[in-house]
């Protein structure tokens, strides 16, 4: 049809006319709501006040619901990597997913996923992936540290118990973000079943997590990997996800360990294989600030004192802030030392494993550096003599600078940039950072590189990338290199390691392997210049009696460098100030000596470096000195520095200097202070002369009468006011107040005016003055208005807003306070910040920890609060889990996960009675909370916990037995159980009884005097007094007379003791492969079952047939007197009931004659006829009467009707009459009245 071809006409917009005008007006915003309001005010008026109130109320409710208690934002500027835990039942695709995600983010392939894998996922975010196996211990531990959980679900199978168990664990320990991932979706052939399953799973997941929780679908595998686009989407979700702060995590520091080194002396291990190990553990610090020397709990191992903490440069740093959208290829870092990737070990016991920077392009090797390999490398590298040398070095801290160089010469290996990363606690390396700023440090490295071999090509670029302007030629070189290899922009660690390996290759072998694995020996020491300042530091400290090697690395004790550097200068000043520091002078001397000695050494070693260092030092020292001058008494040193040893005197005695000499010091001063009077009063030693005027003048400004600060001064404020409200006339008095501004302003501008005092310019100045004054006035007005606004015009700021603002302010202050302080010093004040990569040294770990180390199991260092290391009684609220099929029995051991810990303990269940008594329960209630008392680690109230009956192996059914929360901590328990003491009466006077068998001694009775007792039948009584014989008998009174057969009992409450079992679950110490086999104390039931013991039942408890004897009751005897008084009804009846009539009284029967019989028959017949007639007549009569009654009724009705009508007529007439009467009365006055 042609209609089809014809196009529909386009709408033509009007460009003129009234419609177009209207439209234009509307476009210009002519008629707004305001307009409407004006035009039609009624429509906008309040219709209903109630409704308005309601809507307002509701709006406020909604607003208030959104409020949370504001918390101070303590997140660090550079947060630690987000912990992404991948959980799921076996064979669900966890490793594959991690591998795909890592590939997605870093373009690198990873073989075995061992331990945490940290990657840089974006400009602001790093991720740490951790796979969670199906050991419930692992699940518990990882739930505590997870920020995000990827919960893998095999869609072809459905949910498995592990999933729900993990969700329940999460619920208890703070709910991290949870994202579900459905895998194995390709196993569905039918599309409809697929959709149905997806939906079912989704809804079930939502009920478990929250409505609308994200569930991802990974539809299928392509060449053993998930589809790229899907993984990418998942990755995107992860990298934009926001996390909620969890209470436990934000209040405790923790480290998910990603590297572990055994530092124990190999010789000692050889001779004593079971000796405790010294282990250093590495990882990102998360949670909150970590204090040095704190206590940590390692779940699965136990509680340990941290010997030392120091922070290392970030092995997986975020890219530098640059304005670009995506990450550079070189910035996509991957760090997984346990998996053997990025394991750039820069410690003294070091192994270097490297992936080439461009290895993405290279063919992937099947052989990946695994932990076994690393382990083997470690094993081979440490020859005994090297170790010996190293150990010697650490001992002789004084000569520490010499040795590494020696070793350097011996080995002939130059490891320039690596040295920078060496973190030797024994030489307090961390201090170097303070004295030399970053540039300094890097400069040193560069220099060393120059010295060593200049032909290194790519080791310089990124190292010196940040140290611009230090060395011009170096920089040029570096620039060139940058241009050449733009992609060579990896992290310093990778870079340096690579450089090293290449260098060694050049030195030694000819052909480099495709994947470079280089094992290098690590020096016990480092080059001199890098260390020299530390030595200065240390020598000082040694002189201050705290330089023992073990504690040297302790950053909690190291004092600030620059100040100390200049200590010599102001030592004498200090001495005057310090009151109890007679040691100071000696310090000074010792310092000077040590410094000199050290200098000479260092100069001998490496002149260049030393010179550089000196330059720097001089400059720094001069700066520091100036600062010192400004603040004369170096209080920090006074407080923490030199006198620290007075406190820990225990260490003094064993202290050694340089490993040879014992420090012996006159201890007079210490003894003097140690036992003096303990008083907080601070009396002035040199009292000022307060009689003199000048002294009094010195505090004049402390009073309100003194001079005020600029802007606060009352006089200036007053002046301001005067200027504002210059002249006014007092209308009441008629006075005219003139503003004095002219004079004042003249005074203010007097200098200017004095300069040009010419008369001719006077007028010009005047004009200028006017302008100036006007401006000034405006300015003042503005200021005043601001002040007014600040005071009154607070908007509708609520309490909540105020609180939020306060928190905001505090957060800003927290950030700003230590922002410009160097990290070295900052960690002393703040502790180590979350986000730092830290190394923790623990000195006494059991050897099984190292021997049975399995990187698949997470190692967590959970920091403990100040008193969380102690044990006490905990009172908890507990509920048996709905899905656990048994109830729990009191005194059955239970494994609990509380705080960081997993431990076995013996709980007592109880319930609170209405009077506050905690009554012991034998079993937990089925569907109710009950209390429980346990002996366990002190943990803050409000912490959640979960309980398991066993952690060994896997079971088909749900393993979480109970969940709960800590309520109270104490050192004693208040649980009681009911105790009924039973006794029998042996003598009964009226209401008084003697009762025996309840107590054994008089004393016991005395304790219970006045206690109430009861009989089984319910007669109440009271214990009165003990009797002398038999022992334990007493006199009691009752409200009624007792029977000898009565049983008397006393209800009492007996306090129970909680068994003190605290048995940490040491699952990490079990051999590899059997780590899920931890079995603790068995329950009584298990024990009996295992040993085949059966309970012998109490014979009294067995059921027997009840045999009851016949009871006879005596006759009721009523006294005669009473009988008399009773009414007849109640009187016992005297006469006997009628018996049988005796034979003589019985009458004989009559036998009739035949004639008599005939007569009788006739009479009988006649009577019958008569009766029949009578009956008939009666019925007749009855019917007649009935008819009559009917008629009568009819008549009655008719009569009534008639009467009614008649009455009606009558009333009508009467009514009319009445009306008439009324009408006439209304018309006027009645005539007849």
């Amino acid at each position, binding site marked *: 049809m042609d209609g089809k071809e014809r196009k529909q006409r386009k709408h033509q917009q009007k460009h003129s006319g009234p419609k177009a005008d209207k439209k234009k007006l509307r476009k210009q915003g002519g008629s707004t709501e305001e307009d409407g309001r004006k035009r039609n005010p009624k429509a906008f008026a309040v219709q209903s006040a109630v409704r308005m109130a309601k809507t307002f109320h509701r709006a406020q409710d909604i607003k208030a619901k959104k409020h949370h208690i504001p918390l101070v934002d303590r997140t660090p500027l550079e947060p630690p990597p987000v912990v992404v835990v991948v959980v799921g039942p076996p064979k669900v695709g966890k490793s594959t997913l991690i591998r795909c995600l890592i590939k997605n983010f870093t373009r690198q392939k990873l073989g075995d996923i061992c331990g945490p894998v940290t990657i840089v996922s974006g400009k602001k975010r790093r991720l740490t992936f951790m796979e969670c196996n199906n050991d419930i211990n692992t699940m518990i531990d990882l739930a505590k540290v997870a920020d995000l959980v990827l919960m893998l679900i095999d869609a072809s199978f459905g949910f498995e118990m592990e999933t729900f168990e993990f969700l329940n664990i999460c619920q208890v320990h703070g709910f991290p973000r949870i994202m579900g991932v459905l895998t194995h979706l390709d196993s569905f052939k039918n599309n409809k079943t697929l959709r149905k399953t997806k939906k079912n799973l989704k809804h079930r997941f939502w009920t478990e997590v929250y409505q609308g929780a994200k569930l991802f679908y990974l539809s299928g595998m392509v060449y053993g990997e998930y589809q790229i686009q899907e993984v990418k989407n998942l990755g995107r979700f992860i990298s934009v996800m926001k996390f909620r702060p969890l209470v436990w995590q934000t209040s405790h520091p923790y480290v998910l360990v990603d590297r572990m080194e055994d530092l124990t002396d190999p010789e000692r291990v050889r001779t004593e294989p079971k000796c405790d190990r010294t282990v250093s553990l590495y990882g990102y610090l998360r949670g909150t600030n970590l204090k040095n020397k704190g206590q940590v709990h390692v779940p699965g191992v136990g509680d340990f004192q941290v010997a030392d903490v120091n922070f290392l440069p970030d092995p997986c740093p975020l890219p530098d802030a640059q304005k670009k959208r995506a990450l550079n290829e070189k910035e996509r870092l991957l760090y997984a030392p346990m998996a053997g990737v990025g394991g750039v070990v820069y410690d003294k016991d070091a192994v270097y494993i490297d992936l080439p920077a461009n290895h993405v392009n290279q063919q992937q090797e099947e052989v990946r550096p695994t932990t076994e390999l690393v382990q083997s490398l470690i094993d081979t590298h440490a020859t005994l003599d090297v170790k010996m040398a190293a150990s010697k070095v650490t001992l002789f801290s004084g000569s520490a600078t010499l040795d590494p160089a020696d070793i350097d010469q011996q080995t002939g290996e130059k490891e320039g940039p690596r040295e920078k990363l060496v973190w030797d606690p024994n030489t307090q390396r961390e201090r170097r950072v303070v004295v030399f700023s970053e540039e300094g440090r890097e400069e040193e490295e560069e220099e060393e590189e120059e010295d060593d071999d200049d032909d290194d090509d790519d080791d310089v670029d990124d190292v010196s990338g940040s140290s611009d302007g230090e060395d011009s030629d170096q920089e040029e070189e570096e620039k060139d290199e940058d241009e050449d290899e733009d992609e060579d922009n990896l992290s310093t660690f990778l870079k340096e390691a690579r450089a090293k390996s290449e260098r060694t290759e050049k030195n030694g072998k000819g052909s480099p392997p495709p994947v470079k694995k280089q094992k290098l020996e690590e020096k016990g020491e480092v080059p001199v210049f890098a260390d020299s300042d530390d030595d200065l530091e240390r020598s000082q400290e040694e002189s201050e009696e705290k330089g023992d090697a073990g504690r040297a690395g302790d950053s909690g004790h190291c004092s600030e460098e620059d100040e100390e550097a200049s200590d010599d200068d102001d030592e004498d000043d200090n001495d005057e100030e310090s009151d109890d520091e007679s040691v100071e002078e000696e310090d000074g001397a010792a310092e000077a000596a040590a410094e000199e000695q050290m200098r000479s050494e260092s100069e001998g070693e490496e002149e260049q470096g030393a010179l550089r260092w000196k330059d720097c030092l001089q400059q720094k020292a001069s700066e520091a000195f100036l600062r010192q001058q400004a603040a004369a008494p170096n209080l920090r040193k006074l407080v923490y520095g030199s006198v620290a040893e007075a406190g820990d005197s225990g260490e003094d005695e064993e202290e050694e200097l340089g490993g040879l000499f014992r420090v012996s010091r006159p201890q007079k001063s210490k003894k003097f202070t140690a036992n003096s009077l303990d008083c907080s009063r601070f009396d002035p030693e040199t009292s000022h002369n307060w009689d003199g005027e000048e002294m009094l003048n010195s505090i004049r400004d402390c009073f309100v009468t003194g001079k005020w600060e600029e802007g606060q001064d009352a006089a200036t404020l007053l002046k301001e006011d005067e200027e504002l409200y210059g002249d006014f006339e007092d209308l009441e008095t008629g006075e005219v107040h003139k503003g004095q501004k002219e004079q004042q302003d003249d005074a203010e501008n007097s200098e200017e005016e004095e300069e040009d005092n010419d008369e001719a310019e006077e007028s010009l100045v005047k004009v200028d003055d006017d302008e100036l004054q006007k401006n000034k006035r405006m300015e003042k007005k503005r200021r005043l208005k601001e002040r007014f606004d600040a005071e009154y015009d607070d908007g509708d700021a609520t309490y909540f807003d105020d609180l939020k603002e306060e928190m905001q302010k505090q957060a800003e202050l*927290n950030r700003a306070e230590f922002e410009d302080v160097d990290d070295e010093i900052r960690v002393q004040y703040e502790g180590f910040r979350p986000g730092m990569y830290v190394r923790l040294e623990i000195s006494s770990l059991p050897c099984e920890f190292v021997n049975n180390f399995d990187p698949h199991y997470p190692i967590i260092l959970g920091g403990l609060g100040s008193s969380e290391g102690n044990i006490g009684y905990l009172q908890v609220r507990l509920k048996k889990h709905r899905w656990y099929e048994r109830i729990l029995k009191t005194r059955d051991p239970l494994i609990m996960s509380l705080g960081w810990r997993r431990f076995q303990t013996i709980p007592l269940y109880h319930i609170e009675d209405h009077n506050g008594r905690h009554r012991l329960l034998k079993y937990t209630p089925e569907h109710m909370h009950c209390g429980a008392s346990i002996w366990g680690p002190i943990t803050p109230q409000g912490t959640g916990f979960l309980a398991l009956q066993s952690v060994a192996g896997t079971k088909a059914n749900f393993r979480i037995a109970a969940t709960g929360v800590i309520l109270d901590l104490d050192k004693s328990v208040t649980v009681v159980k009911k105790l009924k003491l039973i006794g029998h009466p042996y003598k009964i006077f009226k209401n008084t009884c003697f009762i025996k068998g309840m107590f054994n001694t008089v004393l016991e009775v005395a304790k219970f005097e006045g206690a109430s007792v009861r009989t089984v039948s319910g007669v109440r009584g009271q214990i009165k007094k003990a009797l002398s014989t038999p022992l334990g008998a007493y006199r009691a009174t009752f409200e009624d007379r007792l029977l000898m057969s009565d049983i008397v009992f006393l209800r009492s409450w007996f306090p129970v003791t909680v068994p003190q079992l605290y048995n940490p679950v040491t699952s990490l110490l079990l051999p590899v492969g059997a780590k899920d086999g931890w079995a603790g104390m068995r329950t009584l039931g298990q024990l009996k079952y295992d040993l085949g013991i059966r309970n012998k039942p109490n014979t009294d408890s067995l059921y027997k047939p009840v045999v009851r004897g016949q009871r006879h009751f005596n006759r009721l005897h009523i006294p005669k007197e009473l009988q008399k008084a009773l009414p007849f009804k109640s009187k016992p009846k005297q006469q006997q009931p009628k018996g049988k009539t005796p034979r003589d009284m019985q009458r004989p029967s009559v036998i009739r004659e035949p004639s008599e019989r005939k007569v009788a028959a006739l009479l009988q017949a006649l009577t019958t006829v008569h009766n029949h007639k009578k009956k008939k007549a009666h019925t007749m009569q009855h019917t007649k009467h009935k008819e009559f009654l009917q008629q009568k009724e009819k008549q009655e009705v008719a009569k009534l009707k008639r009467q009614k009508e008649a009455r009606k007529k009558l009333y009508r007439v009467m009514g009319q009459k009445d009306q008439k009467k009324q009408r006439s009365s209304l018309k006027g006055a009645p005539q007849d009245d």
Partner: protein
Amino acid sequence: MASHGLDYDGCNFFRQRLVLSTLSGKRVKIKNIRSRDDNPGLRDFEASFIRLLDKVTNGSRIEINQTGTVLFYQPGLLNGGSVEHDCNPQRSIGYYLEALLMLAPFMKNSLKATLKGVTNDPVDPTVDLLKSTALPLMKKFGIDGEGFDLKVVKRGMAPGGGGEVLFTCPVRRTIRPVQLTDPGKIKRIRGVAISVYICMCMSFNRIHRKILSFGLTLVAETLSGSFFSAEMSSTPQGQGDPILPEDLGRNCAKLLLEEIHRGGCVDSPNQSLALLLMTLGQQDVSKVLLGPLSPYTIEFLRHIRDFFQIMFKIEVQKPLEDERKGGDKVLMTCVGVGYSNINKTLK
């Protein structure tokens, strides 16, 4: 698994150690208590203090050796509640109260302590001084409310004792961080003068032999609510030279001037209390401006580092050229440990 303990020497700073030990849960061992003294071992007042500590805690373990030269203290949990204690009259109630002020906010039940003994003596801060300076200071840390009070029920002087003080303090879960950097200007000076066994209508000079004791406490309040205090008490009879009340008053005033000269937001006897409450605050930055640190405070800072691993940033603030505000001030900055009262029951 109990946390490691700390070892100390000598009886000085006895209270600090025990108080910090109680708060941190770390056990402490004090050795060589007056070991070289003619009269070695713990004194009665120290024993009395330990007894008081035992009363307010639950589950503390205290071991003292035969001679009393070694004390081992494993702290229990702070219980609080109603406590009555006869303080040994060798030291005034202030000695005991200072420690109790530090512990009181962290108890399980709110503390209601009746302390009996000497209320005023020249050695320790008197009850009046603590009442007028320490309590307002604690209020700034968020410890206030209905039951926060210190009441002097009876006075008692040095040798005999017989005074009675009622101290009540509510329980707090957390302590607020503070920024006390502006001391403000002094607006008023108040004081308490006490005398025992003196007929006030008579001239002092005439009967000063019969005078047994008298004392004066002066408190200067600033606009921003800081308090400076000074006090003097006459020495107990028979000890030292008798002093005229007029002289005592003058000297006390001079002491107050000295205290003002030191300045800061907290006066010298309360420095350690302020620092402790800063330490036990949330993990936030607290700042307090102090006058010169007293030796007691310096030792306290070291102890805080031992027990809580907290170091203070100490900055000396020199007065400006034209300012006439007394001597150097010290700005103390720290980040709290994030201490929360683990004794308080969760309902």
